[in-house]
Every structure is written in structure tokens, then in C-alpha cells.
């Protein structure tokens, strides 16, 4: 049983492995080129554990940013984590001793693995999520340390490797699209963000996009409830949403 859940968690985390190790290596190389060695790479991947923030952090360290600038930049870059946590409040409510780490380790990728609510066993749901989170961070730390050690000695060009992060989110988006019955939330996220990118520009659009997504989805709340009722009465609700409601009921 124990080994079974470890195995399940490992298999679930595999899609993140390549992305994290590759992005981690990229980070380690970048950080070393800014003059910070393997211990810095290790410390940042263990204590911060936020991919895009660590990349931004390299430029903050190299540029000798102030504490205030660093704090504000972190808020901006990582504000989306507030939303991950909000949507996980219910799910992690009874996680007990696993809860602090589950909250700490709620990165983009871990969120994308755990946000569909599917777990192999309800009794061991929190242990499973804890293991998936832990596997994910172990890949990230491994990548960051490896990148720092490899430095610039890689025998091939890694230009374009950063697309792995994009590919991860696109794959996750596609998968959610296939399993979801209601595509309005997914479309809302895409188009609100696109609109805000055009209006506010690439360095300031994230916060407005998050506010707009929340606002639009709030306004659509009545509609979704009606659709769901209709779907339930017609028995056409998708596997993904029934899986989640079962979990909430247990």
C-alpha cells in the first residue's frame, strides 16, 4: 500500500521531472554566470522554490537591488500563487502534518499536477499530494545544483530550452480542456490575459489580468451554476467534475 502510493506519486510527478531539471540547470548556469556558486543555487532552490522568481532573483542579486524592490518584485512575480492557494484551501484543509509543506511547495507545476483533484486513494490523498510535491522539489533542486556544477561546459547549445516551461503549461491547458465540460473558465483566463497584455504591456499585465479573471468569473457565477444543474439533470457532466464533487463529498 505504502509503496503503491509512492509509485503513484512518482508517476504523477514524472511530467514535471524533465521540465524542472532542465529549467533548474538553466537557472544554475545563469546564477553562476552572475557570480554565485553552487551553495547559492542550492539555498535558493530549497528556500524560494519558485521558478520564474528565481530567474528574476538572479538579476536582483546581480544588480544589488534594495530589500524593498526585492520584496515588491517578489509580490508581483508570485502574486498568482495567492490564486493557487485560494483554490486549494478546501482540498488542503485537513492535510494535518503535511499541510505546511504542501502550502510551501505549491508551485505552478505542482499546482497543475494536483489541481484536477484526482487522487489514487482518498484515505492517502494528502500523503500522495505531499509525495508529488516533494518529488517535484527534488527535481528542481537537482536541476539547480546540476546547472551550477555544469556551468558553461555543456557540449551543445541550450538556446530555446526555456520553452519547456511554456510547453508544460500548454500541455496542462490542453489536458484540462479535453477533460472539462465547461470551457468558459479556460477561455476567460486566456482572453482576459491576452487583453491585459495588449493594454498594459509585458511587464505590468499580470496583476490586472488576475483581477479581471476573478471579476469575469465572479460575474459568470450564476451561469456556471445553471449549466451545472442542467448537465447534472441530463447526466452529461464530465468525469473530471464528478471526480471533484465525489472528493468534496467524502
Amino acid at each position, binding site marked *: 500500500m505504502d509503496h503503491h502510493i509512492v509509485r503513484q506519486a512518482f508517476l504523477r510527478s514524472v511530467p514535471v521531472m524533465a521540465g524542472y531539471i532542465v529549467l533548474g540547470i538553466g537557472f544554475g548556469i545563469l546564477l553562476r554566470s552572475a557570480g554565485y556558486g553552487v551553495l547559492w543555487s542550492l539555498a535558493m532552490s530549497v528556500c524560494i522554490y519558485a521558478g520564474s522568481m528565481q530567474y528574476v*532573483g538572479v538579476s*536582483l542579486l546581480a544588480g544589488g537591488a534594495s530589500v524593498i524592490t526585492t520584496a515588491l518584485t517578489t509580490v508581483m512575480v508570485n502574486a498568482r500563487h*495567492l490564486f493557487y492557494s485560494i483554490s486549494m*484551501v478546501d482540498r488542503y484543509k485537513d492535510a494535518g502534518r503535511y499541510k505546511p509543506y504542501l502550502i510551501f511547495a505549491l508551485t505552478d507545476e505542482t499546482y497543475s499536477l494536483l489541481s484536477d483533484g484526482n487522487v489514487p486513494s482518498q484515505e492517502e490523498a494528502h500523503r500522495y499530494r505531499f509525495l508529488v510535491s516533494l518529488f517535484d522539489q527534488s527535481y528542481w533542486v537537482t536541476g539547480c545544483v546540476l546547472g551550477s556544477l555544469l556551468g558553461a561546459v555543456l557540449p551543445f*547549445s541550450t538556446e530555446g530550452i526555456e520553452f519547456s516551461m*511554456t*510547453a508544460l*503549461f500548454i500541455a496542462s491547458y490542453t489536458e484540462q480542456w479535453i477533460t472539462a465540460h465547461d470551457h468558459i473558465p479556460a477561455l476567460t*483566463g486566456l482572453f482576459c490575459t491576452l487583453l491585459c497584455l495588449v493594454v498594459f504591456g509585458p511587464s505590468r499585465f499580470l496583476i490586472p489580468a488576475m483581477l479581471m479573471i476573478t471579476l469575469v468569473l465572479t460575474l459568470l457565477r450564476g451561469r456556471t451554476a445553471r449549466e451545472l444543474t442542467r448537465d447534472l439533470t441530463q447526466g452529461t457532466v464530465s468525469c473530471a467534475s464528478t471526480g471533484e464533487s465525489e472528493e468534496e463529498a467524502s
Partner: protein
Amino acid sequence: MSILRPAILVAVMSAVTILLRALPFLLIRGETPPYIAYLGRVLPPAIIGMLVIYCLKDVQPGDPAQLVPAVLGAAAVVALQAWKRNSLLSILAGTLVYMVLVQAVF
């Protein structure tokens, strides 16, 4: 170079990140309000959509050297994911398509 200053910056980045992740858990007590439960249901696909755009934010649509690798890389991911439903395969293939295009073609 002084160790103290970068160490403080790393600590600040760590503390703020943890605070952002923990805040909703600290503020939302007891029964989860229905509105929050609703957000928990509809936000995940919306946020993933937001992150897709976030990742592509620096692609200049007017520059084929940037646009074409990104579009073909993304198309490869969507097509493979829809076909095989294997995330790792989609991610690796999409990244490979992108890397080959930016390194060898453009």
C-alpha cells in the same frame, strides 16, 4: 563580495513567496465560503490559460524569427497532447521543435 547582502535578498524572496502561498490558508477559516469554493473550481483552468500567455509574453508577433518557433512549438504540444495524452512526451517534443527552429532555422 559580501555574503550578507545577497543572503538578505534571498531571505526576503523566500519569505514573501511563502507568505503569498500561505495567506489564503491563514485568512480563510472554518467552512470554506461557497464563493471561494466556486473560485477553486473555475480558477485552475483560467490560471493555466493565464500562465500560457505569461510564458509567451515576450514573443514579438511581428518578428517571424520569434513567432514561427513559438507557434509551431505550441502547435506540436497541443496536437501531441490531444493525440497521446502524455504530458512529458508533448513537452519534450514541443521543446525540441522550438529549439531546433530557433537554433537551426532562424
